[in-house]
């Protein structure tokens, strides 16, 4: 009786194929529309292998949070529905009777697992059952040190996302940000869910606006390591080794690596006022892209690398503009409000997130479509929201906000739902950037 899952799988696959034919953008809309039918999934508390430490429950909690954030699954509250394990602690922990019970509650997938130790290793066994038949449709064993239990669980979550959508999950991605440290501002990296923040630089002054390299080995950022001069530097996260990429006179800010890594766009004021340039990362040749007496900054690549959105105050206050990657075809994108800045082009190409000033003179996140036709406000409330950056699956944004007083890093769905604070410590956390997959 695998029928229900097979049917679901085929339906999804058929749906996807149908949608792909009509354009990739629709897949995204499909999965984020409120009426998108999420897959109901139930996750039992994981069994601990005789260990005092409640690792099993921890892993189950991490998995539930990951799957909730995936926006693919709706996670059922099994105890509330009266669905409990039968007391067997092997693969058959979920039997036909349980699966039937879950199916009656509309749950199509069940997950159970156990966390146990073997010599120096920690093992996480994950079992995926078909709600209805109770057949095991997948089982996985992850082996690692006890320090990577969260990573093992994230891997299971990503695997479930992949199995049911064919897309890469984001549970193993990272976020870099800037945190105030002894009066200076230093680069940090953390897991996508805010766990494990670790300091990368210790310069003692200002390091700002980090961006990831495609292979996630390097961060590219603005550094004031001589205090009155700005450089665009690159640091290797694993070693702390540093390189200077750009050291033109004046401002050297808002670095943005092209999707294929061949070009680094940035803003410099070597010509007197801030202009957008790009540098070929292989030949180190510069090309000036904007020519205007006003301030041009914050280049943001389209996912194809063919266009750049940027901020310019050529019309008075800052507004968003779009140009081709060679600087031609400049057009104004935003007309709503008198302040639109800090663009971030979504990985699916269909939105440009940015900071907009509302009628109440609050700085909030907005979305504008690349044709300028659709304009949506995403966040509300007090404080300044800044530096939006997309998750690589395009379903979330990370940004900084002073809504609770001190600046912290927050995650939000691309439709404005599920605001979640990711940082807890520190006096000021700003300028987040989400890693590639």
């Amino acid at each position: 009786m695998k029928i229900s899952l097979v049917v679901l799988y085929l339906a999804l696959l058929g749906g996807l194929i149908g949608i792909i034919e009509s354009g990739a953008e629709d897949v995204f809309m499909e999965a984020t529309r409120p009426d998108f039918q999420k897959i109901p999934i139930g996750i039992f508390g994981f069994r601990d292998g005789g260990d005092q430490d409640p690792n099993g429950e921890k892993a189950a909690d991490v998995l539930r949070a990951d799957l909730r954030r995936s926006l693919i699954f709706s996670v059922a509250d099994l105890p509330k529905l009266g669905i409990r394990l039968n007391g067997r602690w092997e693969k058959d922990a979920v039997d036909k009777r349980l699966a039937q019970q879950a199916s009656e509650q509309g749950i199509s997938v069940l997950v159970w697992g156990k966390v146990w130790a073997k010599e120096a290793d920690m093992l996480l066994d994950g079992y995926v059952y078909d709600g209805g038949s109770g057949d095991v449709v997948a089982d996985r064993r992850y082996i690692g040190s006890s320090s990577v239990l969260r990573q093992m669980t994230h891997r299971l979550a990503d695997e479930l996302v992949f199995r049911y959508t064919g897309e890469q999950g984001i549970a193993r991605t990272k976020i870099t940000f800037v945190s105030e440290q002894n009066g200076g501002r230093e680069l940090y990296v953390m897991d996508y869910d805010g766990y494990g923040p670790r300091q990368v630089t210790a310069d003692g002054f200002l390091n700002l606006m980090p961006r990831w390299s495609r292979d996630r080995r390097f961060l590219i950022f603005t550094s004031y390591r001589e205090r009155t001069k700005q450089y665009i530097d690159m640091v290797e996260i694993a070693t702390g080794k540093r390189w200077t990429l750009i050291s033109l006179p004046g401002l050297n800010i808002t670095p943005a690596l092209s999707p294929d890594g061949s070009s680094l766009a940035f803003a410099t004021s070597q010509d007197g006022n801030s202009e957008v340039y790009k540098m070929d990362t292989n030949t180190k040749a510069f090309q000036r892209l904007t020519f205007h007496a006003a301030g041009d900054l914050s280049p943001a690549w389209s996912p194809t690398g063919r266009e750049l959105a940027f901020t310019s105050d050529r019309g008075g206050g800052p507004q968003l503009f779009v140009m081709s990657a060679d600087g031609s075809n400049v057009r104004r994108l935003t007309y709503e409000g008198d302040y639109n800045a800090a663009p971030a082009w979504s990985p699916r190409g269909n939105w440009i997130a940015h900071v907009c000033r509302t009628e109440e003179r609050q700085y909030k996140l907005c979305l504008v479509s690349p044709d300028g036709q659709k304009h949506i406000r995403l966040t509300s409330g007090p404080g300044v929201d800044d530096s939006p950056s997309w998750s690589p699956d395009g379903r979330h944004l990370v940004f900084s906000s002073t809504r609770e007083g001190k600046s912290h890093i927050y995650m939000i769905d691309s439709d404005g739902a599920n605001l979640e604070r990711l940082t807890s410590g520190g006096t000021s956390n700003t300028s987040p950037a989400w890693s590639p997959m």
Partner: protein
Amino acid sequence: MRKVDLTPCIAVLVGGLFLVGAGCGKSIQANSGAKSFEPGAKREATSVPKTTASTGSGPGSSSTPSSKPPTAASSPREPLSSEPETPIPSLSTLDSGPGPFNAKKSDEQRVPGDLLVAKTEPSDMSRRQVEEIQREQVATAASGLEDVYFGFDSWQISNEGKQTLMVDAEWIKANPSQKVTIEGHCDERGTLAYNLVLGEKRAKAVQTYLTELGINANRLTVVSYGKERPFCKDREESCYQQNRRGHIAIRVQ
């Protein structure tokens, strides 16, 4: 006892090695012209690098230091001079992981150590920065140089600001050996990036006015700190007003 089929595991490992190898090959592409440096920080590896772990050495060896320990630290104050050249690694390489998942029904995977991050400690440079800032503050306070304040979103110097700068200009002329930094600052409203541009406009407006008063431009260094170094951290207009400033500071050598 659970039966474990290692075949997919080995396939994954071999695939992983291949990808890592490919990545390394690409990253060796020479990019001349720049040298690397260490910002004076003491560093040591804290966990297994991803690439090492994916070859199967596993997290058990999590104390293994990075295969390339950092070279002798040199201060970025004398940047890029005495260090042996390390070419800038290619930025076009892709990560080998996480990679797609094996669709097989049963699978066993070794999960490598988490993202390797070099351990950081405050560097000599960091201490020197703090000392310098303190000496500058003392020298600036002693000089009696006054700051200029700006309106919201504005870089126009007010009449009051011009009066202040005339007094400042007299001091700068009377102390020809002193070099001066003009710092542009903004209040917390608005974005980090745009405030850096706005701060530069403010600093340059001050610089322009001082040169009009007869100060040689090469005595005046301009820098924008945007909203990153506020003088006051309260969220009210009186505080915002203090932060929208052109700060005139004495440079200590």
